[in-house]
């Protein structure tokens, strides 16, 4: 990962609207995220935090407006190119989305297997990341045998293992105790230090003190304020 201090935008959202039927989830959102930014998206439940993240990795498509990620226009991207866009992003899902028939190690290694990395590198890197989240001794456990907090850490390890350019995390510490939350957040900080742009959707205001970043407050689908802390 190349370290940069430049201010080139990696994500740009122009007048983005997202509707689910008659319900407006996001309304006229304009947002620019610079390279190596650390951005918190916050707001109450139903404010549109998760929707905003899902639009960025094309789990959803905008109803109106434009989104550019690394200069790629998400509304014009070809289907075959979507996997390559997603490989530049690590995503921590709120509901973890782990594969239950895969072990902890296999869940994390899968990301590197899809990119065709060497087996030796996969083993080394997957173990390294799992060590960083404190799960080195649970490599061969299946997700259903893990606590909610442990599953969340596996999800974080999977998002981080590919050294992504952008890390998107949806309530990454929601199920964690203070110690585990700190461990996960340390991992985010390390990735950020190496140049990764980190976007965390959370309503946990304690996290804002842990890192210098920007806070985007959503309210009923609209950007209410943008702060720098």
């Amino acid at each position, binding site marked *: 990962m190349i370290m940069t201090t430049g201010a080139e935008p990696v994500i740009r959202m122009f007048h983005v609207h997202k509707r689910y039927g008659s319900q407006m989830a996001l309304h006229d959102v304009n947002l620019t995220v610079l390279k190596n930014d650390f951005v918190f998206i916050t707001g109450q439940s139903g404010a549109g935090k998760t929707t905003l993240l899902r639009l960025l990795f094309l789990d959803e498509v905008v109803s109106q407006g434009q989104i550019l990620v690394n200069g790629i226009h998400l509304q014009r991207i070809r*289907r075959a190119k979507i996997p390559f866009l997603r490989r530049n992003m690590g995503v921590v899902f709120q509901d973890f989305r782990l594969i239950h028939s895969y072990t902890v190690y296999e869940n994390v290694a899968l990301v590197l297997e*899809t990119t065709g990395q060497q*087996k030796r590198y996969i083993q080394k890197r997957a173990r390294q990341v799992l060590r960083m989240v404190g799960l080195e001794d649970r490599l061969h456990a299946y997700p259903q045998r893990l606590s909610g907090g442990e599953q969340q850490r596996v999800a974080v390890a999977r998002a981080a293992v590919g050294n992504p350019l952008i890390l998107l995390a949806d309530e990454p510490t929601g199920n964690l105790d203070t110690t585990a939350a700190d461990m996960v957040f340390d991992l985010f900080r390390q990735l950020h230090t190496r140049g990764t742009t980190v976007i965390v959707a959370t309503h946990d205001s304690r996290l804002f003190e842990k890192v210098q970043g920007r806070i985007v407050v959503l309210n009923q689908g609209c950007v209410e304020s943008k702060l720098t802390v």
Partner: protein
Amino acid sequence: MNLTTRSSIFQRVRRNVSTTPYLHLATTATIAFSLLIIGTFALVYTNISDLIRSWQDNIRVVAYLSDGLPEGRRTSLQQRLAKLYGVGEIRYVSKDAAMDRLKRQMKHRLSLLEGLQENPLPASFEIRLVQGWQGWERLDPLVDQIKQLPDIEDVEYGQAWLRRFSQFIAFFRLASLIIGVLIVATTVFVCTNTIKLTLYTKRQELEIMSLVGATDAFIQTPFYIESLIEGFLGGLIAVGLLFGTYRLFISRVQSPHLLLSSGEIAFLSLTACGALLAVGMLIGWFGSYLSLKRFLRP
């Protein structure tokens, strides 16, 4: 595709088979059953076709001559016959030779022939056709040409009934083809739905793979490999069962030479067996293609 991706794909093939063994068994059994039916039709068809071909190859045209034909005119007639396109060997059978042959054939009822004052049988030319020339569409014009020659009283070819039988075989072939296509289509439909069930049980896994950056090829390849293996195994089972049944059938048939001129009912050729395996794999592949196409539709 590098070694890691390949190994990951084969690992997923193993995992898929072990997590849903009954669905895979059902697919393999469906393919095997369909190919068994198709193979049976092919076996019957090839043997009957071979039989007809061998009968056709032995067709003789008999041209009966006018009574009291002088030798000079007979020789000239034979020369004219020999010049006709498609005529091979010509053998002259005199009135006496015809009577001797009849007596040999009726050796237990010779008394029937004893009352004859004179030999009523005509002299004839027995005409064999050039090898590989035979065909109904060519035979009729040739017979017409022979009939028009002077001193020819009548022309007949004993295997005329073969024509009707051949028409039946042509119908059988068409019916087999239609039934074969219907069976293949039904099997593809069944396979598509079985594979859809597998995909449905794995939908969460596939969705997650897609979200972490797996390409469609990475996601789909294990399913194609599984289907090809199932198709191949289905084909092997079908050929095995067909061969077993064939052996059982042959051992019970008394004097098969009564049925076939070659004396034996032949099993499918290696090429035909290979074609059955290929059809099995094709059915599996196509079933996967249809279900994956619908399942991964954006």
